[in-house]
């Protein structure tokens, strides 16, 4: 459903992402991990048409993103790392706008918007301008926006940041249910616990390259850390041996 073939991006002489090959199947939740500056957000931006790749291609639901961007984008929903939304629209108006942009019939918008607002507990705020929303509220609204047009593919860049525990739990349950219905989910996160519990497969990116990819067991095998949790595997793959020395500076 999502296929990245030799995907690469250079910023001047600096390669941000190099030769990335990946496939995320329908119903799969794929966790994308890596230290800061590893190239995760660059990858997300290339997958969603916000950045043009220097090399390779992105296939969304079988459609080449470069050749048929409109159809590919219609099949996809994005939650960016920073949920910037139009400050002078209200919550309900934002959802209406998103629904119209993605071609959702007006009758469905009329029915679904109040449901989604209720699901994310935004009803009391639905008539307020988005400039008065907190980060978490805007994050929930963006999530409501992608659920409104019910895409086959979700691309999420740190979707849990700013969410209160109840909303965080709700969002996790939503992802699991959507995956069961066949939605392919690609999720960048720094919260290893979420990746460990939620994701079917995990990829670890360092310096623009995928250094490990597979199920948790496969990652354990790759890092030769039998029976250890994802945090230890992640630290061992990303240079965790130096971790204890960093604390000397405290």
């Amino acid at each position, binding site marked *: 459903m999502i296929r990245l073939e030799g995907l690469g991006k250079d910023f001047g002489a600096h390669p941000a992402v190099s030769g990335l090959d990946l496939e995320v199947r329908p119903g799969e939740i794929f966790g994308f991990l890596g230290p800061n500056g590893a190239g995760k957000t660059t990858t997300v931006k290339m997958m*969603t*048409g*916000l*950045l*043009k790749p220097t090399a390779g291609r992105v296939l969304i639901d079988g459609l080449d993103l470069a050749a048929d*961007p*409109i*159809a590919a*984008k*219609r099949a*996809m929903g*994005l939650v*960016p790392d*920073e949920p*910037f*939304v*139009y400050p*002078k*629209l*209200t919550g*309900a*108006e934002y959802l*209406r*706008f*998103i629904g*119209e*942009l*993605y*071609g959702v019939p*007006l009758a469905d*918008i*009329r029915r679904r*918007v109040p449901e989604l607002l209720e699901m994310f507990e935004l009803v009391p705020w*639905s*008539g*307020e*301008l988005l*400039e*008065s929303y907190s980060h978490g509220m805007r994050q929930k609204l963006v999530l409501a926006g992608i659920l409104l047009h019910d895409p086959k593919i979700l691309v999420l860049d740190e979707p849990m940041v700013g969410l209160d525990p109840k909303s965080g739990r709700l969002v996790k349950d939503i992802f699991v249910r959507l995956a069961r219905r066949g939605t392919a989910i690609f999720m960048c996160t720094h919260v290893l616990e979420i990746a460990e519990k939620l994701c079917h497969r995990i990829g670890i990116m360092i310096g623009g390259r995928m250094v490990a990819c597979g199920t948790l067991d496969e990652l354990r095998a790759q890092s030769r850390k039998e029976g250890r949790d994802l945090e230890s595997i992640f630290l061992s793959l990303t240079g965790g041996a130096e971790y204890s020395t960093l604390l000397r500076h405290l």
Partner: protein
Amino acid sequence: MLGTLLRRRVRTFSNTIGHWSRYECLRNSAFGAAGFGLLFGLHDGFYRLLKHLSGIELIGLLLTWKLTAMLLLMTFMMVVVSSLLTALTTLFYSYDLKFLLKAPVSLRAVFLDKSLESAFFASWMIGLILVPYVGAIMRVRGLGMGYFLAFSASLPPFLLLAASFGIGFTLLLLYLFPSARTRDVVWVFSSLSLTVVYGLARLAQPEKLVRPDALRAVAEYLNFLQAPTAPYLPSWWLAEALRMAAEGDWRGWASRTAGLWGAAAAVYGLLMALAGRIYFIGYSGAQEGALRRREHSFRLLPEQRLLGMRSAAVLLWKERTTFFRDVKHWSQILLVMGLVFVYLFSIRRLPLDTAELRGLVSFLNVGAAGFVLAALGLRFTFPAISLEGRSWWVLRSAPIDVSAVMREKLVFSGAPMLLIAATLAAMTNWILETDRFTAWLTLGALLTVGFAICVMGVGFGALFPNFLVENIHQVESSVGGFVYMAACLFYVGLTVALLAAPMQMHFAERFGTGVWNSRPALYAGAGWLALNAVALIVPWRLGRRALENHE
């Protein structure tokens, strides 16, 4: 502590320049040279004017200083109004305020740092315009560099004092009414003030200075010249200091300059003392969002009734809704109205006696009104793409083409622009009682110019997008804004040059000195079509490609 705060500005500035690439060095040098050329042009204009004034017997000197006082008064008022806006954004809404106010820095140090920044941004450009003027005084009167140094010593406290009015007013207003709504009131108030200042400057009829015959009696005219221009304002103190320095009265200059510095120090001391007590209350109140519930009915939008269920309709609805909810944007309409009023007032005041002269002015109006439309394009159309801001990802990741976004921006700014173009052309022709041929030619030309300026505005806006800007002025004063304005002026100039051929034949026919010759008219028409084809197609295509590839 203030030293640390100021050092960070110096370091930021030096780091920015130090990290310029070769391309940026070349580009900024080119624009620096263009800016210098502009200042030199202004200097030349001022020199010619002052030379003419000083040549008038008996009252030449009086005229020079009267004009200087009026110019300084205008400068003062412009800085006051400008500082209202900059004080609001820098003192209460800067990104770094959250960091600074969390740091163990005294509130007064933060206030002084931010108020100096505010004063700088409110005054540097207006102050820079005075340099070529003073240069012209020096040339006309044969004064040396000592005079320029004297001017340089007197100017900073003058600008600081002007900015302190806006800073003090905003500080007090946010203290008395600490809410986000006050921000909106300040925006409307400053737009209104700027409109009034602009209108008053025109209604003062400065052209009377160069046309003494326009005043009924000599005594009345001399009274007008000798009366101080707002003697209680620092603009008069600076005018006096400049006059005294020019006459070699250095003691008088020193006392006026010391007065300016003393007043600036006293006013900023007072503001600092006040800020210690009230700044944080205003800042805290300004952060509160204005809550006002708006219910959204999920009926068909007006734009959808008009255009159908296409994405263009919803884009247009979003644009209209966000524009009219943002006081920063809709309050600018007041300025546009002021601009149109002053323009038409100026046309009405022109001393035109014959029908031929009125016809000529009506034709040249295409150039002048084209300039006004270009200025409006720079303010409203060119920034439209960049003003999508950090929400740009919403549209870029949505299943719509960037062309659809560009077309929507064109429709939203094109409709009012065409209305203004039609008003300027029709009203001017009506005031000047222009003949039918000239009236239709100028109306058609201005409507085309208005449309092309909008297309170029969207095209260049897409070619030079900046989604990280904090305010509209950063977009206007960017390199892209400069290129857009230069392209517009070039286009308007060529339009006037090409349409001059049919106008010349029309005049020749009216005077009975010639008849219509189809070949030059055909060439002019073909040239005009080619010019518009280039203006309508090239920036649009370049902009669309740039926006598609924007990273």
